């Protein structure tokens, strides 16, 4: 405990240097913009900014990229409330009551409560991170290749189960991501795979191209396909003096914020798109706890405060599996893993000991970042809302220009731009055909780790697959995988039985 506190104090020393403070503020501002602007979510936003961090030391780079991640969560709520258009998926639920509040002239308190809730959740979440990460890292030291393999498989299954509408479609996307991840040189034998003697493919597919393509270009193309008149939008911009919530608002929201924080933190630790699940879970909890559940969907402030706190808290705790196990459970943290690797840092149980300045510096910067976001969000909401007044037919070409430029700067390669466009077109088709992109991206980033764990496990066991079930931790993860795989089947059987009963009764 004392060690963690000492680490955190040192982390504040690292995070409060002029350089790191600057990158923290930059990350928070860019993140808010990314969250506000349609067509750019946190994933494409982080991916685009990775090249800009090449000249920085790893700590400053991750401080800025992490700032974009949680900044986007703040920004995403602005469009939900003012436009009924979520800036990113974690803000979908905020639309329900946030937009209704805006329609009743209460956009200001809704936006303010988002910022206050996110700040409180972010602060509590950081303390959770500080006290939970070191013991978990110690526990993870016993993890060998079989445990890592089973954990990653478990992660894919949970993510596939909770994203989109079809488990099998999400699973297929995960396998496609794993296949794409095998392109390039085999790290064990040094032989080329699926590169067809094409030098550009020898190094593998650039994950930044896949991320920007699927999540950035794909979203822009989906917007372009809409009729031109749909690209215009009317935005309500609240005035500064309308922003302050009443004492009654604060009183109603406090419980929701604290419950949302707890839910978010817990959900962030398990595989899956944590912020999205956390917001849904928090909304449902608030509706259940409320004395006036009929107000939900019509502008209940708890329906905004709870989910917004939950998504911020989930963002913080999602850093635990990334830093402690080196395994991200969702695409934004997968992109951060890619960024860490680019900067020569391999996250895992040893990271706290090997890179204490990075680990504690990033955690401390999150606290500072949350404070900056609170300061930034309240007075500058009218400014961010005004950005939304830029018509989409101007904004979308701008996003494309940034995507193309950003993509080129990763490796100074036009081939990467082609790849990005290819994945952009693929992302568009996947959207049309209801295939989820998240499992594909996560699988692409984790693919090489999964393959290494698979091959090493079998090497240890002399080819015996029993190693995956013979070790208790690995067995628990695989059991969890089987349970998650059987949920859709059980649901199907239950529905069948129910409809049969219904038919019998009506007969």
């Amino acid at each position: 405990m004392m060690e963690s506190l000492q680490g955190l104090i040192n982390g504040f020393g690292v995070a409060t240097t002029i350089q790191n403070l600057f990158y923290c503020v930059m990350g928070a501002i860019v993140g808010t913009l990314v969250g506000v602007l349609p067509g750019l979510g946190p994933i494409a936003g982080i991916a685009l900014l990775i090249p800009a961090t090449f000249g920085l030391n790893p700590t400053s780079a991750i401080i800025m990229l992490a700032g974009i991640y949680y900044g986007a969560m703040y920004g995403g709520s602005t469009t939900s409330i003012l436009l009924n258009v979520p800036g990113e998926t974690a803000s979908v639920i905020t639309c329900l009551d946030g937009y209704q509040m805006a329609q009743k002239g209460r956009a200001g308190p809704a936006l303010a409560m988002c910022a206050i809730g996110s700040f409180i959740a972010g602060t509590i979440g950081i303390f959770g991170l500080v006290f939970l990460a070191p013991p978990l890292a110690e526990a993870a030291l016993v993890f060998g290749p079989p445990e890592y393999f089973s954990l990653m498989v478990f992660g894919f299954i949970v993510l596939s189960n909770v994203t989109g509408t079809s488990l099998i479609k999400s699973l297929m996307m995960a396998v496609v991501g794993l296949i794409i991840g095998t392109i390039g040189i085999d790290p064990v034998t040094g032989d080329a795979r699926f590169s067809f003697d094409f030098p550009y493919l020898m190094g593998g597919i650039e994950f930044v191209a896949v991320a920007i393509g699927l999540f950035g270009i794909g979203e822009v193309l989906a917007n372009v396909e809409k009729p031109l008149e749909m690209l215009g939008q009317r935005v309500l911009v609240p005035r500064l003096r309308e922003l302050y919530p009443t004492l009654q608002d604060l009183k109603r929201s406090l419980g929701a914020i604290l419950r949302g924080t707890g839910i978010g933190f817990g959900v962030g630790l398990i595989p899956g798109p944590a912020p999205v699940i956390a917001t849904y879970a928090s909304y449902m909890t608030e509706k259940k706890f409320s004395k006036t559940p009929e107000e939900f969907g019509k502008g209940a402030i708890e329906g905004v405060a709870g989910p917004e706190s939950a998504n911020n808290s989930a963002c913080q705790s999602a850093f635990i599996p990334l830093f402690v196990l080196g395994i991200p459970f969702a695409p934004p943290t997968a992109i951060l893993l890619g960024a860490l690797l680019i900067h020569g840092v391999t996250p895992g149980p040893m990271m706290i000991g090997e890179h204490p300045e990075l680990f504690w510096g990033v955690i401390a910067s999150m606290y500072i970042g949350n404070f900056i976001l609170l300061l930034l969000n309240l007075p500058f909401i009218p400014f961010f809302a005004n950005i939304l007044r830029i018509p989409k037919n101007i904004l979308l070409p701008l996003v494309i220009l940034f995507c193309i430029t950003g993509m080129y700067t990763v490796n100074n390669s036009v081939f990467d731009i082609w790849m990005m466009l290819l994945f952009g077109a693929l992302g568009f088709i996947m959207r049309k055909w209801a295939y989820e992109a998240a499992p594909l991206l996560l699988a692409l980033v984790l693919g090489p780790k999964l393959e290494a764990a698979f091959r090493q496990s079998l090497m240890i066991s002399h080819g015996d697959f029993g190693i995956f079930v013979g070790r208790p931790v690995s067995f628990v993860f695989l059991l969890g995988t089987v349970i998650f795989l059987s949920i859709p089947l059980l649901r199907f059987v239950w529905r069948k039985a129910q409809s049969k009963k219904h038919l019998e009764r009506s007969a």
Partner: protein
Amino acid sequence: MERDEIIGGIILLILGLITALLSLQMPIGTFRAAGTGMFPLILGVFLMILSGVFLLSILLVRKKGPGKKESQTRTPGSPWNLILFLGAMALATLFFNRLGYPLISFLLMVALLRILGTKRWTINILLSLVTATASYFLFVGWLKIPLPKGWIGI
């Protein structure tokens, strides 16, 4: 919708088959000492199984009857805009090195703004000029990122 699902399933089935066939041309090894092709082979086979199950489930639902009517409403899209938009991006990529960043960013903005309905040329060109200049100063001037100069040489 059902046609899209079948096409998607078939594409993934073919992708799985191609992956498996190409993997077989690499050393497979044994489970004890896996070769280069082992992991992709497993993935290819797994994808074929999953897409096979997916296609089968669609066909089974179809056999049972037409089922529920399509509930998803689609916005009447504009495929031409999409094709032109993609074409403009592809052309910009093709001439990225040859024409250089400042010129290509300007031309790309002009084209994309025009496709998305900015019909007045003065506004279009002014916006494109401002954007191209700003992005040039941001990336080349401030971030010092070497971008292709092309034949205009800046």
